Every structure is written in C-alpha cells, then in structure tokens.
C-alpha cells in the first residue's frame, strides 16, 4: 500500500471516529436533556401531590374546627340551660321547704289563737309582708271581718276592716274565690284598705272561709315573684284548713265543757 492510500485510509478512519464521537456527544446531550426534563417533571409532580395533600388536610381540619365550634356552642347552650334549670330547682326547693315548714307549723296545733299567730308569722317571714290582715267570713251575716292584722302604722284602719260578701275588691274575692293581685309597676295607684296589693281567699275546696289581704311588702321585697303566687295559694289552702279545724275544735271544746258542766250539775243534784 502506498503512502497516499495509507493516509486516505487513516483519514477515513479518523472521520468515522469523528462522526462516531459527534454522534456520542449528541446522544449524551439528548440524554442529559431528557434526564433534566424527567427530573423537572418528577419534581413538579411531587410538589403538586404535596400541595393537594396539604389542601385536603386543611379542609379536613377546617371541617373539624367548624364541628368543634358548633359542639362548643351547643355545650355552652346546654350549660346555660343547666344553670337556669339549677336556679329553678333551687327556687322550687326553697318553696317546698317553705311549704313543708308552713304546713307542719299550721297543723301542729288545734288552738285557734295559735294557728292565727302561725299564719301571721308565715305571712311576715315567708311571704315577706309588712302590712296585712286576716279576714274571716261570718256565714250568718255574710260579712268579712279582720281577726288579726299587722302593720297598722303603715296602713291605718286595718283593725276595723269590715265588708260584705260580693262588695268591693275584698267582697268579690271572697265571693268568687279568685285571688286578686295588683302589679304596682303596671297598675300603679295608691294602695288603700279597699284596694290592697293582694287578696288571697282562704278556701277549703270551693268553700271560702276568709281572706289573707296584703297591703305592703317588706322594704327589701320589691314585688311578688312568679313563684310567690303559687306558694301564696298553697299556703292559703293550708291556712284555711288549719283555721277551720281549730275553730271547729274550739267550738266543740266549748260545747263539751258546757255538756260536762250540765252533767256535773245533774249528778250533783241527783
């Protein structure tokens, strides 16, 4: 082989090597580009997933937060209800204690004067009245007359109250058996002997035997509360039976004494 053909052969091999090298470089560049794009694609995909996951988590937490806030409001409402119920139960408890003590005391004696004294104590201490009167109905004359009173210094004339059944406020209460209350804030006007603050009938079933009439409450008690009305009516019912039975008892005791004296007289003379 001549020197010239050797050179051509070498040049040809060199060119092929050059082409092959260039092709390798291109392939390398293409792969690098592909790798870079894959890396970017991969990185971008992971970030989106994370964001999606975090968004879902935020959404779940927000929902839970809303649910907890809602439950908190419900529990708060329940708490308020419980607190109100507790106050109501305390008031009822108080009323029951008052009623228990009042009825216990009212039925602890058959002495008429003692019963009246107990009714007065109850009206002062449990109802909170400063000026009041207890009226009894005389069934023969149909007249209501004061048999006990308190606070005549603030309401003169208590001792001489006398009214006929059906006449005026007091007579109407005794006739109808319906309690009478004045709401001072709404009704206003002066309280008089004829127009009291409250008049509650002393009733045994539907039979009215008298009235408890309130003219003024103690200084520290502004007005009757809702529970007072109920308590007052119950007290009046107990007071009525206690007054009625003690009155009957004292009458029968008087009759018994008369009969006993008569028998003694008969025994002595025979």
């Amino acid at each position, binding site marked *: 082989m001549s020197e010239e053909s050797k050179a051509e052969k070498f040049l040809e091999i060199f060119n092929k090597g050059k082409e092959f090298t260039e092709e390798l470089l291109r392939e390398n560049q293409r792969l690098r580009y592909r790798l870079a794009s894959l890396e970017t694609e991969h990185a971008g995909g992971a970030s989106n997933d994370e964001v999606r996951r975090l968004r879902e988590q935020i959404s779940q937490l927000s929902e839970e937060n809303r649910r907890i806030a809602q439950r908190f409001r419900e529990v708060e409402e329940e708490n308020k209800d419980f607190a109100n119920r507790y106050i109501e139960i*305390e*008031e009822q*408890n*108080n009323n029951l*204690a*008052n009623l*228990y*003590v*009042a009825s*216990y*005391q009212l039925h602890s004696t058959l002495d008429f004067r003692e019963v009246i004294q*107990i009714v007065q*104590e*109850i009206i*002062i*201490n*449990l*109802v*909170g009245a*400063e000026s009041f009167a207890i009226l009894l109905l005389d069934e023969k004359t149909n007249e209501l007359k004061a048999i006990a009173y308190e606070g005549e210094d603030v309401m003169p004339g208590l001792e001489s109250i006398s009214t006929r059944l059906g006449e005026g406020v007091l007579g109407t209460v005794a006739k109808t058996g319906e309690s009478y209350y004045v709401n001072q804030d709404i009704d206003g006007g002066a309280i008089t002997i004829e127009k009291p603050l409250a008049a509650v009938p002393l009733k045994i079933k539907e039979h009215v035997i008298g009235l408890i009439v309130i003219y003024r409450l*103690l*200084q*520290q*008690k502004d007005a009757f509360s809702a529970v007072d009305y109920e308590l007052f009516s119950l007290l009046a019912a107990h007071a009525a039976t206690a007054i009625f039975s003690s009155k009957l008892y004292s009458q029968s005791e008087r009759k018994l004494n008369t009969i006993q004296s008569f028998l003694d007289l008969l025994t002595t003379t025979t």
Partner: protein
Amino acid sequence: MGMENANFLVVEDSPTMRQLISFSLKRFKNAKIIEAVDGVDALKKLSGPDRIDLILTDINMPVMDGLKLVSLVRQNAQLKNIPIIIITTEGAEEDRERGLALGANAYISKPIQSSHLIKTISELLSV
C-alpha cells in the same frame, strides 16, 4: 373549721323561722342544730357544753334582741371569734350597717332564700 360536723345556734322567737332555718342547715353533713328563743336563751346555750361554730340570729326578739346578743358575744373573750349571721325582716341599709358594725359577719333579709343562706354559711365556715 370545716362545714361537716358543725354546730349551729339558731336564735329566733318564731318557731316557724326556727324550723325553716334548721331545715336549711340540714344540708350540712352531720350538722347539730341548737335552738334558742331569744338573746338570753342564746347566751345560756353558748355557755353550755356544746361547741358553737356559727350563730344565726334574728333581731326583733323579746327579752334580749339580736343586736344586743351580737354585741355581748363580741365582747366575750371565749366567744368573740364565732361567726354571726343576722337574719331579719329589717331590710333598711342603716339596719344592715348597724348589725355589721356591731360585729355580725353577714346580714340576710327575710324572706330567706335557702341557697343564699347556705352559700353565706359555707363562705364563713371555709375561712
């Protein structure tokens, strides 16, 4: 002094009020309730064998009223530290001030609310 096993002296001329107050005091576990009908009777009970942890007294009573009783208890070296609650129909501010100035620890106007009475006693006995 705790609220259990406490001895209370109730000074009231009205049997109804004595019973009502005693009824409320039964909320305290093992409470012993000693009753007196006026100030003189209360002083006798105070000098008796029972230790008294708290006195509840009315003002308007025959023989000796509640204000005199408060004053005498506060002057007595052995009794002066006993807490006293005045329970009365006298609701005027000057009456309250007079009662507290004499040495009463609390002043409650009638008609009493059992819950208020219990709260007041609990506060005084837990000090």
